[in-house]
């Protein structure tokens, strides 16, 4: 069975600093990978996805993630975070039509 590991449960960072949220998956077959964001008391919103093609995918709000098959990783990065980026971030893999989620990383941005 596929699994997703998010090693960092919490990541504190100051505003305008860069951030990386780590995600590793276990799979020997082709995968679809996703990052979702969850704001307090809300559902999940898709941030970005990797289905095929370019290994670097970007979101409209400045986040990017790189699919690394050899390291089975899909780390999320942002060069400069804002206070509004404070949220819970979940990495997920498609298996194949259901999503397997990691335990989440709480990104806390301080002024």
């Amino acid at each position, binding site marked *: 069975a596929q699994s*997703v590991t*998010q090693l960092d449960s919490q990541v504190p960072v100051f505003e305008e600093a860069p951030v990386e949220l780590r995600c590793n998956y276990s799979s020997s077959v082709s995968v679809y990978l*996703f990052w*979702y964001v969850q704001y307090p*008391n*809300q*559902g*999940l*919103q*898709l941030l970005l*996805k990797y289905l095929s093609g370019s290994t670097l995918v970007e979101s409209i709000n400045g986040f990017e993630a790189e699919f690394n098959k050899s390291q089975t990783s899909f780390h999320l990065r942002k060069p400069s975070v804002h206070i509004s980026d404070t949220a819970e971030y*979940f990495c*997920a893999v498609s298996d194949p*039509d*259901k*999503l*397997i*989620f*990691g*335990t*989440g990383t709480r990104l806390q941005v301080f002024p």
Partner: protein
Amino acid sequence: DAGVTQSPTHLIKTRGQQVTLRCSPKSGHDTVSWYQQALGQGPQFIFQYYEEEERQRGNFPDRFSGHQFPNYSSELNVNALLLGDSALYLCASSSLVGNTEAFFGQGTRLTVV
């Protein structure tokens, strides 16, 4: 487009009771999946419905059952509630054809006391 809508938003039930949660998928979507998100955890897949039938099921007991209606809306039923069933229940809709991404609703917060 209203997106995925879930009702109710919050619910308090007593141990042993039964509960029904409802979900209306995004327009154009025919597949509904249900997830349970316990506090501090990632969502866990419960089951998926397509063409009014359960298509896939996660590792949840038979106390968890569902239904999909001809208009693609869905219900999640949980019988004999346990304290451990307290969680955020998320509904996600997608289209099986074309393998589109899943869109999530706001969730129903269930508290069992």
